Every structure is written in C-alpha cells, then in structure tokens.
C-alpha cells in the first residue's frame, strides 16, 4: 500500500517544506520510494499477485511481476530525474518536486491498477502534472506547441474513454482477469472499433508515425527533467497498456485486424525517424526522432503478440528508458553549460571535459546497441521476430541499426571532437556522474544477463492462444 501511496504523500508534503531543503527532500524522498519498491520486489513471489484494495468501487490494484518491473522502472526514473537535475534550479522548486511526485503516483497507478477504468483514470491523471511542468518550466514562448501536445493526447484519451465505456458495457466486467476471460468474439466488428480507440490513445503517446508531430517540439521546448519524464517513463505507459491490457484482451479478430496496420506504422516510424534524425542540427530534436525510431520498433514487435517477443520487448522498454535519460541528460548538460544545442556551434568538448566525453560515449554505445548492452539483446530479438513474421518488415526494421549508428555517431562526434569551439566547459558534477554510472551499469547488466528480467516478467505475461 505504501508502495502506491508514498508518492502522493510526498507530493503533498512537498508544498509545505521550507524551500531551502526542497532539493534534498526530492532526492531523499524519491530514494525512499525506490528502496521501498526494491524491498517489496525482494519479498515478492513472481508467480503471484499482490492485491491491494482500498475499498474503492472502480479502482483496485493488483501487482504482478510485470507491474513490479514497471514500478521499479518508474521509481528509478524519478530518482534519476531528481539526481541528474540536482545541480539545476528546477529541483529547488517546490512546484516541480510536488508535481514530479504526483506524476509518479499517476504512473504507479497506471502500472498497478487492476480495473480498466482505473487504468484510464491514472492515465489521464499523469497529464495534469506534465502539463504544469512543461508550462512552468519549459521554454514555450507561445502556448501553441504545448496546446498541440494536449490536443493530440486528449483526443487519444477521449477515444480511449469511449472504448473503455464500450468494453465495460460489452463485457459487463471491469477487472483485468475478468476481461481476459471474457469472450469478445461475439462482438465482431465492434471489438475492432473498441481496440481502435485504445490504439489511437497509445499511438499518440508512443508516438507512432502520423501522430508524432507533437513530439519533437515538445521535447525541445520542455525542461530537461520534463523531457526525461516524458520519454523515459510516460511513453512507456502506452507500450505497457498495449502489452498488458489491449493485446491480451482483444486477442483474436481485433488484434488480427490491427496487427499489420500498426506494424506498418511502426516500421515507417523506424525508418522515417532515423532518416529525419540524421538531418537534424538540434541535439534534442535529434534524440526525439531517435526515440520515435526506437519506439516504433518496440510497438511493431509487440503487435506480433508473441510470447518470447513480449519478454524481450520489456527488456527493450527498460533499455529505452535508460538510453533516453542518458541522452537527454547529455543534451541538457551541453545546453546548460553552453546555452546552445546546435551541432554546428559545438565542438571539441572532449578535450575540455574528458569525464563527460567518456560517459557520453558509453551512453552513445548503449544507444547504438553494441553487444553486451541491453539494446543489443532487445533490438536483435525484436528484429528477428519481425523478420520471421515478414522478411521485408524485418529488413526495414534492421535499418535502424545502420541508420542509428549514423545519427548517434554524428550526435556524439560533432560536439565532442573537431576544433575546440567551446574552450570552457565545466566537467560533470558528482550527481551527473552517478546518473551516468547507474545507467551504464544497468544497461550492461541487462545486456549480459537479460534472463533475470525476462524470466521475472514471464510469469505475468499471458500466454497467447496461438
């Protein structure tokens, strides 16, 4: 119970503590949630469910091993966000601390709730803090970009709301287990529409190809911490929803109908994102398109709804969180120190800041999915799965490896090497080194021993019928 409610408590407490210890409070409180959830995982039997019931009518919680993975990921991301922004003014703001914890609460709710309406409520709840964070701390000179982000997400979520209502009416059930057991085959085409509503919401969040236009601008205008929250954990809600809720529940006609459209969009995203990323001059925009490319791959592979692929997809989800925190932190560091993110105006940082150069390099390699990092396992198996489904798809998906190398190496090489344009560059603060180190260790550990994660998750992934 403390697992879920702790962030909410912190979010309320954050308004009342003196502002000079806000920064330390945020760090310690997020560390507490991380420790609590780690301890809970240690005592958790992977094949079981942890039921939490507050006596609410529409919202109940049940944590399985996939839920625990996501809880750990969320708490770790929040902790890393606080840690990596320790030297920035943003963590000194009560508002940010409170909103970040509120966000954590919403995310934990999404990952642990057991009822479909609860899923929707928490999904929307996360919009509130991210909107305020982006608005207060981002550099949106005009609210247009922010409102665009909202237009897309709201449209998606309202479509999902209709689907939730339709699903609850059609099955007369609301809990996850009951929905899994419910027979949707009698619904016929209606189930295709219902699934479409969910998919629209997810496609906006992931984002899939034609719905991605909010992404680049929001990422670049958002504060670094906001970008981290968005890309490292908020987008994972959609993949999680796809993996845990939509695919198992709509297994059958609806999934068969949507499989190839979504895979096509995902693959278009993979290629398009990578090609656009190569042409970018702004570091954050580049990483935003890289993110589009990576997530398209995960979404496409998830649609295969194949038991082994789903396990690997979880690895890749975690890996993407690691990569996006690391890369956006690097971009944030460069921007904070130099005031620009334009690749053309950067150069020779490696000579001035060797420690930064080292850690950025490690993260670049993780992102490139070189062997012995989590990305290698993830991408290799996901591409293999797509390849066995359809050779052309697999081939197109595999271009991410080559194109990824092009844009990542460009993103690394341009600011780091070449003529020294930026003579003064303050090297990394200990908190930033700690973040990079944690991320790298996690990525390499997952790369060496992915089975610890896949086996843990396997208990709660539903076995597909075919």
């Amino acid at each position, binding site marked *: 119970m403390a697992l879920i409610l702790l962030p909410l408590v912190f979010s309320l407490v954050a308004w009342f503590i003196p502002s000079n210890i806000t920064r330390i409070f945020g760090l310690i409180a997020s560390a507490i949630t991380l420790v609590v959830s780690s301890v809970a995982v240690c005592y958790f039997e992977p094949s079981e469910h942890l039921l939490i019931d507050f006596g609410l009518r529409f919202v109940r919680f049940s944590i399985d091993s996939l839920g625990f993975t996501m809880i750990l990921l969320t708490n770790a991301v929040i902790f890393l966000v606080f840690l990596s922004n320790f030297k920035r003014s943003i963590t000194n703001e009560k508002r940010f601390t409170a909103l970040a914890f509120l966000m954590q609460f919403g995310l934990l709710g999404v990952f642990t709730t057991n009822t479909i309406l609860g899923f929707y409520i928490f999904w929307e709840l996360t919009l509130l803090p991210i909107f305020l964070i982006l608005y207060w701390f981002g550099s949106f000179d005009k609210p247009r970009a922010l409102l665009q982000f909202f237009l897309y997400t709201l*449209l998606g979520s309202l479509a999902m709301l209709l689907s939730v209502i339709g699903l609850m009416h059609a099955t007369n059930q609301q809990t996850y287990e009951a929905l899994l057991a419910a027979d949707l085959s009698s619904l016929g085409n209606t189930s295709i529409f219902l699934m479409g509503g969910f998919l629209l919401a997810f496609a906006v969040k992931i984002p899939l190809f034609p719905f991605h236009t909010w992404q680049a601008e929001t990422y670049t205008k958002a504060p670094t911490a906001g970008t981290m929250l968005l890309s490292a954990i908020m987008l994972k809600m959609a993949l999680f929803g796809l993996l845990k809720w939509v695919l198992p529940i709509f297994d059958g006609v609806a999934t068969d109908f949507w499989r190839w459209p979504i895979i096509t969009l995902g693959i278009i995203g993979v290629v398009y994102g990578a090609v656009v990323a190569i042409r970018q001059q702004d570091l954050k925009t580049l990483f935003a398109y890289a993110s589009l490319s990576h997530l398209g791959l995960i979404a496409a592979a998830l649609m295969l709804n194949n038991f082994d692929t789903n396990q690997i997809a979880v690895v890749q989800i975690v890996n993407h969180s690691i990569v996006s925190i690391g890369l956006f932190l690097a971009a944030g560091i460069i921007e904070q120190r130099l005031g620009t993110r334009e690749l053309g105006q950067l150069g020779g940082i490696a000579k001035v800041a060797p420690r930064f150069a080292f850690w950025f390099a490690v993260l670049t390699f993780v992102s490139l999915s070189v062997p012995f990092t989590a990305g290698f396992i993830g991408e290799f198996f996901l591409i293999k799965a797509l390849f066995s489904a359809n050779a052309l798809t697999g081939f197109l998906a595999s271009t991410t490896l080559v194109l990824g190398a092009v844009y990542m190496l460009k993103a690394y090489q341009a600011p780091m090497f070449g003529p020294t344009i930026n003579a003064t560059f303050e090297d990394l603060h200990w908190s930033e080194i700690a973040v990079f180190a944690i991320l790298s260790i996690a990525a390499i550990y997952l790369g060496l021993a992915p089975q610890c994660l896949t086996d843990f998750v396997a208990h709660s992934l539903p076995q597909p019928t075919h």
Partner: protein
Amino acid sequence: MDSIVILFISGLLGLFVGMQKKPLFSIIIASLGLIGAGVAAYFKGSYVSPFASYAAFIPTQGLVIILLCTVTLLAMLGGYKRYKSDDEHTGDYFALILFSLCGAIIMAQPNDLMLFFIGLEILSIPIYVLVGIEKGSSRSAEAAVKYFFTGSFASAILLFGIGLLYGATGSFQIIEIQSNLAIGIWQSPMAIIGSLFLLAGFTFKIGAVPFHFWGPDVYDGASNAVLMYMSTVVKIAGIYAIINVFGQVFRDSYAFWIDLICIIIVLSMFYGYITAWKQTSFRRLIAYSSIANAGLMLFALADIHNSNIFLFVTAYALSTIAMVVVNSAVNDDTDSLANWEGIAWRNPLVGVALVLALFSLAGIPPLAGFFGKFSLLWSAAPHVPYTAILALIASVIGAFVYLRLMISALKKPKVTLPIHLSFEQVLVLVLTSLATLGALYFI
C-alpha cells in the same frame, strides 16, 4: 414542499430584515433558510409532511433540492460582496433569489405541466429583475430587457406546447398524458407539434443551440454575482425538468425526438466551444461554455430510464461558481480576460481553485468533471454512439478553451499584486475545491 415553504418564509423574513440595512443579517437569514430547506429535503422521507396532499404534485427527489440549495448558497456567498455594496437592497436581492429558487424546485420535478409552468415563471421573473441590478449600466438594463422579452416569448411557446398537449390528451397530469400518449396519440400532429414546442421552450431555458442567442448578451450584462446564480441553478432546474417531462411524458416517442436531441447536442457543443475559443470577455466565455455544457447535459435524455446527470451538473456548477468568484475578485468592472494573466500567482488559493475548476471542466480525472462526464456517457454511449464520438471531439476543443484560460492564469507575472479575497469568497473557493476533489469518493 416543506423546503419550498421554508425558502418562501425565509425570503419574506429577509425582506423585512433587509429594511434594517444590515447585509449581514440578510445573508444569515437567507443562509439559514437555504440550510433549513436542504435539511427538510433530506428528512423528507422520515415523517409525514402536513402538505402531503399537495406534495403529491411535486415528488421532488431530496437530492435535487439539496443540490439546488447548496448551489444557491454558494452563489449567494460568492456574490455577497456585490450584494452588500448596495445595502439598501441586499435583503431584496436575497429574497428574489430565494423566491426564484422556490420556482426552480417546483419546476425541477413536476408532476403536472401546469404546475411546472408556474414554477418556471416563478423561477424566471426574479431573474429578469436580478439581471438588471446594475442600475447605472445600460448594458445591464439592455440584458434585462432582452432576457425578459426572449424569456417571455419562450414561456409563451412552452405554454402553447402545453396547451396543444392538453388538447391532444385532455390532461395536465404527467401520468395521464403519458398513458394517453402511449396508446398511440403521440403520433397525432397535435401531440407532435406540442412536444416540439415544449422542446423549444426547454432548449431556450437551458440555453442550447438553436435558442442560445440570448445567453452571451445576458450573461455579459448581468453582474458576476447574478451570473453565479443564473448560470447554474437555472440550468440544473431546466435539465431536471426536461428529463422528467421528456423521460416520462414522451417516453413512447423516444425514437422520434432523440435524433433531434442528438443534433442539438452536437450543434451546441461545437458552436459553444468553438465560439468560446475567441472570446476576450470572461462572462461571454462562460456563456459560450455554458451553451456547450447545456448540450452535454442533454445526453441525459439518451437513456431515459437512467439519467446520470447529478454528478455532471454538480461538477459544472462548482467549477462555474469558482471561476466567476475568481473573476469577481480580479475584475468586476472590465470583465476582460487580459486581466486574468498571472492571477494564480497573486493568491495561492485562487491558483489552486482555478486549476481544479478548469481541469474539472475539461474533464480530466480524478476531478468531479470527469466523473460527471463519465457517468453521463456511461449511460448515453450505448444509445447514441455516434453523437458520443462527436461530443468527445467537441470536448477536446472545449478542453482547449479551458486550458488557454489556465495558461494565461498561470503565467508568471513580472510584478505580483496580491489579490485580497473576502472571507466568504475564501469560503466559497475552499468549498468548491474540496467538493471538486471530493468526487474521488465516487471511484
């Protein structure tokens, strides 16, 4: 019925107390009357009312009376500052509001169309007067006259509809009309035209397209204090009346009028929200937002056996009152949205109350507005799925109207001049915020 008697007596008392020119006494009397009416409605089931024989006419559910009384109390407290400033007439204003509330309660759940019409007039006439309380302002006078003429016209149409129904069925009693219509009379031209006239009258009262045109001008001309009352109580009473009349009397012609209602819903929502987008005056924005919300409320008619409107109207009333209170605190004279810039920073309570109210209106969980919208759509969506889809698209536009307002309110200003709220305004904002959050109870 007891509630109406209590309200009426406290209104009369208030008139006498008002002669003392002590606004505090007036508001205490009025508040006690409202609370007493609410309590009486709550305990209605437990004892036999001396008015039992008349009460048969008005089987009003206690919950609706309590809601109407609470909303009126909030609106009264929120506007107290304005009413107080004119201490010669404070007692009169409160008496007018209480009398009008009597009409709202009679109208909300009628058993008899004649009684319903009387309730409607009792509700409307004090409001015609209240709209004109800014005696020095020509816009207020214009609004009052405009509201009076259009309102009387709508009443006449409604009365004509009731007359036609009487002609078709030979009764004013809702049950009798229903049973007469059920045997096939509803297909007679007289009954059909009667029902259309009734619908037009109702649409006017709740301010939905195509009879919305009075809304913006009247809301704009009325003062904030009156706006709090008329944009909430009138709509709540109107929507309950339309649910009762259409849900009961015209139950058999459901297939005939539901398409019409769907068109009204879609038009109201799109028109209201799209037009609200470009407003620069706060009260006009509230007017267009209320047109759109009137459209949403009509969803209650889609499922006549189970209209989950209560939460939605509560959430709408709470948010609207909170916003208008804030508006009356920041700009009572100019009413320009430009003055809203950065107000969340000028008083933390205003900030919190506004964020909650606007997110609630936009329908973001876990606030009251979401649960209201959810329960409405929950019963309506299976009956009118396509309208529900269109309505959701419209609510995205609506969310933008509210978010734009919020963005401007949250913008950090260069200089912060604190806003001073009076005690009762603080009370109203705290209560509305708590209640908006309190919807969590329903999960």
